[in-house]
Structures are given as C-alpha cells and as structure tokens.
C-alpha cells in the first residue's frame, strides 16, 4: 500500500480525486462497521459525492433511516453536545495535539537536564553553556532530588549495618553465657 504523506487540500486533478474518493470512502465504511461491531453501537454514514447524485450509505438505506430517526428523536441538547463540523473538529484536534506537544517537550527538557547533570559529573566540567536561569533552577532541583534519594539509600544501608551488628553481638553474648553456664 502506498504510504506517501498526503497534502491536506482539495485534489484538483479529477481522476485522482475520484480514485481517492473511492478508496477512502471504502476504508471509512469499513472502519465504521468495525466500530459498530466492536463496541456494539448503532451507527450510520451518509455521503454525497460530486460524482454521484445518489448518496452512498452504510449500513443499508433502511437501517440508516432507523438510526437517523433515532438521532432526530433525541433532545436538541444531547444532539448538539457532541455534534461537530469540520471547523469545530479541526479546532479540537489542534488543541489536543498542542497538549501532547507540550507534554513531550517537557519530557524532553527533563531528559536533557538529566543528561547535562551526568555529563558534568562524567567530564568534571559543568555543561551549563546552553542553560538559562530557569533551566539552572530546574537543574538544581534535579540535583537535590538525586541527593535526597542517595541520602535515604545511605540511611537504609546504615540501618541495615547497625541491625546486623546488634544481632551479631547478641548472638555472641548468648554464646558466651552458654559457655560459662556449663
């Protein structure tokens, strides 16, 4: 299957547009059918193309009528709540994508700071040249976080050592008393 990136604008070439229409319409109907089956929900689609005066529909015209009637009978508020046209849909997509972009940028920023920290440790030379004040603040936070982790590990390890030493000395005492008691 050809996987070229398609430019999102009206296809001016008539035959290319017709071919694209046929393929994509078929694919979309398949997806709709899958959605309906997998999730056990009522659904339908009506498509008017410039190539045909008759609409193309899924599932069948009579079942489409049923779904549309069910839709029409719903209260206006419920219908409108999740009703989209191209403009509103695209705005939603842009907003969602921007959120994802922000999230990934933040993750990448953290990864870079971590890298900066370890590079500085490895080489012995602080790698601060690309960092501004805000970044330096974040870096300081990261270092403090690591220090906290290390200190708590050291505490735990020390506690373990003390526990073991206490146990050992108790065992020794018991052993000694045992001998003397004989």
């Amino acid at each position, binding site marked *: 299957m050809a996987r070229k990136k398609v430019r999102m604008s009206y296809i001016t070439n008539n035959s290319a547009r017709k071919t694209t229409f046929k393929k994509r319409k078929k694919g979309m109907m398949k997806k709709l059918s899958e959605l309906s089956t997998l*999730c056990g929900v009522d659904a339908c689609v009506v498509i008017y193309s410039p190539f045909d005066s008759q609409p193309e529909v899924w599932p069948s015209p009579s079942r489409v009528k049923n779904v549309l009637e069910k*839709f029409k009978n719903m209260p206006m508020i419920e219908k409108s709540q999740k009703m989209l046209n191209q403009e509103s849909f695209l705005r939603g997509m842009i907003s969602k994508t921007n959120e994802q972009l922000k999230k990934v940028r933040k993750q990448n920023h953290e990864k870079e700071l971590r890298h900066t920290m370890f590079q500085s440790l490895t080489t012995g030379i602080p790698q601060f040249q690309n960092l501004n004040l805000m970044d330096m603040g974040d870096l300081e936070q990261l270092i403090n976080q690591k220090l906290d982790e290390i200190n708590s590990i050291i505490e735990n390890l020390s506690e373990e050592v003390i526990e073991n030493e206490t146990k050992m000395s108790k065992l020794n005492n018991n052993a000694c008393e045992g001998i003397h008691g004989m």
Partner: protein
Amino acid sequence: MVRKSKGRQKVEMVKMANDSNLQVTFSKRRSGLFKKASELCTLCGAEIAIIVFSPGRKVFSFGHPCVETVVDRFLTRNPPLHHQNSGTMQLIEAHRNANVRELNAELTQVSNELEAERKRGEELNRVQRASQGNCWWESPIEKMEMSHCEQLGGSLEELKKAVAKQVDRLLIQTTTNPNSYFAAGSSGHPTLIPNGGFNGVPVMPTHPHPHAWNPGYGRFF
C-alpha cells in the same frame, strides 16, 4: 525494555468483552473515524454525515457542511437545495472553506512539530541508554552500594556549588541587561540535541569514578 503498550494487535470482529477496553476503543476509533471523514471532505469535496451512538447515553456526530442539512437531505430525498445560487450562502461557504484551509494547515504544522519532538525524545533515550552502559553512576540508585553512594553524593554536592555560582553569574548578567533573563549563554532554548540529530559519543572515563572536584575558581570560570 519495558514497552508502554502492546502495539498493533489483530482484533476479532466481535463485541469486546472487557468494558473499559470497549470504552477506550470506542473513543479512539470514533476520533480516528471523524478524522478520516474530515480528510475525505477536504480532499474530495464530499458532503457527509456520520452518526455514532456511544456505549453510554451519548450520541456523536460529524457533518460537512453540517449534520442537519445532510441528514435532512437524505430523509426528505430532496435534490440539494441550490442555495449556492444565493450570494449570501456563497459568501458564507467561501468563508468557511477558507477557515478550514487555515485549520488544516495549522493542524499539519503542529502534527509535524509533535512528530519531530517525539523523534528527539527517542534520540535522547538512545543517548541515555548508551551512557548508562558506561557509567555506574548513571544506573538506578537503589542498587548502589554504600561507597558508590557516598562518592556520587560528594560529586553531586560539588556540582550543586557550581550551579549556584553560575546562577549568581547569570543573575548579575540579568540585572545589567534585563532582556537576558531568558537568554542562555548562547541560544535561548536549551538544545543539546537539535532536530538534526546528535553525534555525541558517550565519554569513556579514564578512571571509573565521577570526577572528584576541586572547584578552583580559575578552572571552571
């Protein structure tokens, strides 16, 4: 390597058994379907209405130019009202098409940025994995033995001091030139890995310690 999700799996075409999976599937597939519909309208100039009832009580719909007109057109079996003849309708439609063109362009741009940023993230992961192989101090701390912990802690304390010094330096810079708050030493945005790629090689330490520092003033600054 722990995978975040199972990836693409073949799905049996029956109603899904697990209810929460069903909800997630509905949400994702519905979104993808509407995206395909929007693209069909843009690419081929089709008019469309999709109605999908949710597993809950809601109904989702997508329509171009709008759901109601396409639904009515189908139900009444009327030929399309030749509203295009009306000057006002033509103007409205032209305006709407211009908006959609702009929005499509914006979506394409943001999507490309997202993809680039994701690639950058993977590159950063690769770099991290490579250097973790060489340096014990980059490995998870929970598994470290005492002496390593103390050594790493010492180096970190030194680095912290270097950070504080640099912060002071930058603060002085800022007060003399307020515009430089967001400016770094060179560029404004920290980019260890520009979009073009990273040619860094993990540093092989000559001795297996992080540098024990003597922050002599002359040496670093």
